[in-house]
């Protein structure tokens, strides 16, 4: 099982460039998330989606954009890269209907995309 797949794993950008981080999941999960991880700061939520066509901002959305045209895919766009966006980015998904039946919607994470902006 592939689970959550992120590409690329590594990327170096120059300030002002744009790029898209790809995320795909094959578990038919409704919810998908993008987090960034900075040393000592834990994970901060950038954007999330509760289903195809529905997205919403998290804690740190500035400088990013997302779309969700299918259940499987949730790309993250950096509009004009800045050094402050140097980070490790994680995509995750969860089956939220579990929460309606006493579950807790465990998150499944990809392996991360390490981005450096010079």
């Amino acid at each position, binding site marked *: 099982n592939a689970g*959550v797949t992120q590409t690329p794993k590594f990327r170096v950008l120059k300030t002002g460039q744009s790029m898209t981080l790809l995320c795909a999941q094959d578990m038919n999960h409704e919810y998908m998330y993008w987090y960034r991880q900075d040393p*000592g700061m*834990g994970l901060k939520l950038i954007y999330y989606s509760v289903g195809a066509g529905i997205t919403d901002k998290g804690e740190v959305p500035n400088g990013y954009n997302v779309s969700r045209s299918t259940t499987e895919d949730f790309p993250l766009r950096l509009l004009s890269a800045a050094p402050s966006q140097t980070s490790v980015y994680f995509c995750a998904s969860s089956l939220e209907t579990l929460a309606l039946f006493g579950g*807790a919607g*465990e998150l499944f994470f990809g392996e991360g995309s390490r981005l450096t902006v010079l």
Partner: protein
Amino acid sequence: AQSVTQLDSQVPVFEEAPVELRCNYSSSVSVYLFWYVQYPNQGLQLLLKYLSGSTLVKGINGFEAEFNKSQTSFHLRKPSVHISDTAEYFCAVRPKAAGNKLTFGGGTRVLVKP
């Protein structure tokens, strides 16, 4: 809103010694509690979770955690660590209402020494 504080950023420990990682949270609503582990250069994976019932929760790889509602804590323990437990550990909470998102602590890096 919720917040999670992991009181130790780094914990060095010798192999076969016990380890405890501390986690305190703040929330105005009832929450689910989680511990995730991140091995070097990998994504996060679930270690254990507390939903309800018994306050002592057992997870994978011999880890357990105890929920203390009065102290709003969810400390993680392992009685005897292995080299392979070297990783970063994250405590997280989410409101019980469906559709809400996880809030993570800052992480605790565990380095197991031989």
